[in-house]
């Protein structure tokens, strides 16, 4: 349905991408297997990792991932709250990077860390990362639907109740984020 440009090959260890996906799962509330399936033709986790590093630099990403690795055995919600500093009134630069990573997975776009919206609307995003990023945004699953302009459902589904949140890949259990 959609074309995509393959991400340029980069010598990134798979364990690094796996950690990025696992951290993203905790931050977003989804199953890691949804973000980075065993068979992964889209390779979004890799694409997002590369994109974020290009925006903020390797050091910032490594620091955030190391912070995740230090607490990765905790419950997913606790990991999210810690890395996003949800109880703080002024999130650190590192937490703002975590916010941009959540936004990237949810909306398929890159929001510059720390840039807020205003006047009743979201902040301008830097770019839609790719058409595959748009059509795989998690926010559409959160609303138990499909991306606008990319429906895998069939005629008349809109007159019926949707499936449960867990059927859309949300991690509704109490286990870890992996």
């Amino acid at each position, binding site marked *: 349905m959609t074309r995509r440009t393959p991400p340029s090959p980069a010598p990134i260890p798979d364990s690094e991408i796996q950690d990025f996906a696992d951290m993203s799962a905790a931050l977003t509330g989804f199953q890691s297997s949804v973000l980075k399936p065993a068979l992964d033709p889209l390779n979004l986790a890799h694409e997002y990792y590369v994109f974020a590093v290009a925006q903020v630099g390797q050091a910032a990403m490594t620091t955030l991932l190391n912070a995740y690795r230090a607490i990765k055995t905790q419950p997913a919600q606790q990991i999210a709250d810690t890395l996003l*500093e949800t109880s703080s009134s002024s999130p650190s630069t590192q937490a703002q990077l975590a916010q941009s990573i959540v936004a990237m997975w949810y909306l398929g776009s890159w929001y510059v860390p720390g840039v807020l919206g205003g006047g009743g609307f979201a*902040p301008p995003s830097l770019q839609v990362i790719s058409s595959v990023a748009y059509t795989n945004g998690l926010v559409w699953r959160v*609303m138990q639907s499909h991306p606008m302009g990319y429906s895998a459902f069939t005629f008349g589904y809109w007159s019926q109740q*949707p499936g449960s949140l867990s059927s859309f890949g949300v991690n509704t259990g109490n286990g870890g984020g992996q």
Partner: protein
Amino acid sequence: MSPTTPQYDVVILGAGVSGNLIAKELGLAGKKVLILEAGLAVPDSREEYMENFYLALAKTPESPYPALAGRQGSKLNPVGELPDPATLPTPRATVLSIGKAPDVSYLVQQEPFNELHKNDPNPQNPPADPKTGDVRGLQFSSTFERNGGGTSWHWLGTSLRELENDIRLETKYGHGRDWPLDYSELQELWGLAEKEIGVAASVAQQEPLEVVGLKYPSGYQYPMQAIPMSLVDQAVSGAVAGLQVPGTLPNTPGGSDPTLYDVFVSPTPQGRNSEPYDDRRVCAGNTNCIPICPIQAKWDPTVTLGKALDTGKVTVSYQSVAYNVAVEGKNATRVDYYQWSRDDKGNLTKVSKSVTGKLYVLACHAIENAKLLLLSNNQKGVANSSDQVGRNLMDHPLYLTWALAPQPIFGYRGPLATSGIESLRDGEFRKYRASFRMEIGNEGWNFSKGDPYTTTMDFIQGTNNSNVNPPPGGSGQPVRLGGLKLVQQLNNIFTRQFRIACMFDQSPLADNRVTLDVDKATGKPNNVDGLGLPRPKVEYGLDPYTMEGFRMAAYVCSKVYERMGATEFTINGVGGAGDFTYQGVNYHYYGAGHVVGTHRMGVDPSSSVVDASQRSHDVPNMWIVGSGSFPTVCTANPTLTLMGLAFKSARSILAALNS
């Protein structure tokens, strides 16, 4: 070929709804037809347009279509630059350029307060004229496309018929202007258009609308079964059962109509497939009819263009912008146009050409038709002895309200709109205020607030641009969330979002008009397009009759939300494009894309431009077609009716060719 032998039977300007339909009908009758289309060719596949849409930062109606600047921003310019219309061969009005200066906005218009006084902490809306009560200096907010297929690439698909009193407004209620057509003739034309489009609807489901005068010929059936109502529709429909509202509110100028009218929801006849039809697929509910249906389950004008080309008698010349219709004696004799192209470096070049036909059809769009007529004959104009060309510009000004339902109703699913409240479209109140229809949206707060982006970023960043953070009933500061808590909060909001759009039967006003943006004394253009042609200048305002409709619509929406137990979040700004004040209350309107009235039809050549066949009163071998011919904008979305009128025009063109 002798110079006096026309090259074609008919030359049609514009490959949109009307132009393609007329071309097809003429081609089937064996006539030789040329379509001059100003913009780019219809692409072989809509994948290219889909990719534009997916990568667009703002998913506006224009976003899939060519000639917009960058799909993606840069680090320096995150929102992307809009192109200067002076550099484009076929610039057009776009949502992102509404209210902007002519270096961004193709239409040259009064800029709103917030553009003229940036960062002024005390924005104002334009004052009402103390004598008439009219508010002038507003922005015409509807947009259109200039490419093969035209604006109806992104029509919604709503295929309602007009009501009998819509076309008899002047006789029945002493307001507006009658149409020069019988309702029974329109019924026959709508039937033809419904077959061409493939409208999914059930006559039985529409029968309750007899209360507003909607009638079908005996035994009529739509081409295919109705589209199911969405869960959102079902929630609204159940809640409003038994609701009645008065015809007018207290302090309505001019009089009152205390009659109580029933409020009920009706499934909307829609130009999208409920079953395979015309070699096109069944609707999969992509929730993306505007800006683009990914699978062409919704009819669009390229479908009819394909059939026109299949006749073997129709040729299209793309990138061909007409700038003069030559008239000698009474008749049109030639069309002059620029064939434009871009070289490898993107430089625009143009070649001036001419073409001749026995008959001519202007099907460029209401604003472009008016521009071309005024531009012709060295800006002295043609077909305008009535002085009505460009006047009576109308839209369905659209009043948007939005709310959270008390329980999940699951928007963002299905076609963008599948039902509406049509039961308030007619009544004695039309003596005093504008009638309206109410469209129920299936896209949450996408239109209202730019969701899901706005609310999602609010809960990630701890802001409150959506007005739901803190959530309703919550207190204190906005929250920041992650993990399952973020999922649950967003699910709780998004599954309860919905909106209602009210569209008004706006009054035709002579001062709401399209003119050429030229220096009155010298005729020299002020602002030009990339071909050097003057741009359309638009003046626009609202009268109290129309604005009173807004007041009533706000009241009815509040009653509907009250019945549902829903919480309304509608906010109307001040000082922006589309903001106005009526009886001390601020309102905002959007454009509906229903551009109407610039070459209105009528019996009397001194007060109308075309006759009931859309044939020019002044130039008998020229037809000027499209929604520009509508004397009033009425209460139905215009595409079905303008296609019906195109069928009538095709008949009269054939009769003229064969006589």
